[in-house]
């Protein structure tokens, strides 16, 4: 019996060591420098990631905090149960309303916790008032956010995390770790480019969700007419 107990205790310690190694893996960092940092002519859009401050925040109903607004349909069907919807007002770099964005995020089957990757495939449908629509596809890595903010909030006796956190969420599919942008209609029609989403947080609650969390989308678009202009007349 004592050997069984010893083996069991050893296994528990082994699992704990493995968990600690994953959590404090020194080879998994947090990116805080945007691959588009040196780009010119970028568009910066900011938004709130606090459900109550968004136009809508919808999931399958299993999370600790309720969807917003109340009475909105939840995504309970099996095919969409791993998807979260955020509809939010987008502000420009001066804080003035620029339009709105719809974000669909679904956990990626390619996620590998061993590599410090909790990957999420997300797409944005952005409408800029009077200018037109954009489509942004990206892969995000949520692990640094979970490790630095969400898990400490759960461990905290007050169920809260407070501090200063900033991270670049976008890790692909672009070669430099940026997302891809396609303009559909309006002023940008035909243009393509890159985008990066970042998150800045100062308060998070394990019971009621993000309390002071803002996101930003940095978009760099190529001029669709540039190629034509380069052609000698």
């Amino acid at each position, binding site marked *: 019996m004592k050997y069984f107990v010893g083996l069991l205790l050893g*296994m528990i310690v082994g699992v704990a060591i493995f968990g600690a190694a994953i959590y404090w893996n020194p080879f998994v960092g947090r990116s805080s420098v945007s691959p588009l940092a040196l780009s010119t002519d970028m568009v910066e859009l900011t938004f709130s990631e606090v459900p109550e401050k968004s136009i*809508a925040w*919808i999931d399958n109903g299993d999370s600790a905090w309720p969807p917003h607004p109340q009475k909105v349909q939840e995504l309970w069907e099996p095919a969409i149960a*791993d998807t979260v919807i955020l509809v939010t007002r987008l502000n420009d770099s001066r804080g003035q309303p620029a339009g709105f964005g719809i974000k669909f995020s679904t956990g990626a*089957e390619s996620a590998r916790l*061993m590599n410090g990757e909790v990957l999420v495939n997300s797409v944005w449908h952005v409408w800029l008032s009077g200018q037109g629509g954009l489509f942004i596809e990206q892969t995000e890595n949520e692990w640094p956010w979970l490790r630095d903010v969400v898990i400490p909030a759960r461990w905290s006796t007050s169920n809260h995390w407070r501090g200063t956190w900033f991270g670049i969420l976008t890790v692909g599919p672009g070669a430099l770790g940026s997302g891809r942008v*396609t303009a559909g209609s309006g002023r940008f029609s035909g243009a393509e480019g890159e985008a990066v989403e970042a998150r800045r947080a100062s308060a998070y609650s394990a019971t009621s969700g993000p309390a002071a969390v803002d996101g930003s989308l940095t978009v760099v678009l190529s001029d669709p007419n540039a190629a034509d202009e380069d052609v000698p007349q």
Partner: protein
Amino acid sequence: MFKTFSTGIILGLIAAGAAVHFVPLYDLHRETSIVTVRPNGGNAELFQIHLPADRILAGGRNLPDPVPDRLAWPEPLDSSAMELFKIRNANDRVVGIASRIQGAVPQTPEVVEWMLHLPARGSMYIAMANDSGVEGNRTGSLQKGTREFAGKHGTMRETFVPSGSDDSSTGRIELLAFVVANAVDEAEEVVQ
């Protein structure tokens, strides 16, 4: 006793490693894709939206009946309207979600944009002119696809089929997507 404890630690490490490696974080549910192959080698796939049951959200500055009724739409935004839907396959099973934006941009006719998101397969982004044809259809082109739809081009036709009652808000929206691989991709496949 110490040997047993050490063996337990190693077994625990192996078990945890195996679990993290082999148990997926996300195991997405897949519905059967009901696709018709067309003579040009492309695919045709029908998606449908039952109204009002599949409308998740409807918002806009001038929208008389937002969904849900407590939806607060930001005042400063322009007169564009936005809707979110659950989308179903031809067998009426929910396979994804979609956003539809109808808006005006200067010097061009009003446009309609769709973004279809099928979690286990990928996304499609379609832009179309708002003016419906003689048969009441709108047709637009696939601007971009991701994952299963990446590198494809095609069109999508939007048709509203009323339920037959006097209420024009009930019925279903049919989205018929025609998608084909790019000519370059097809040529590469032939070479291979």
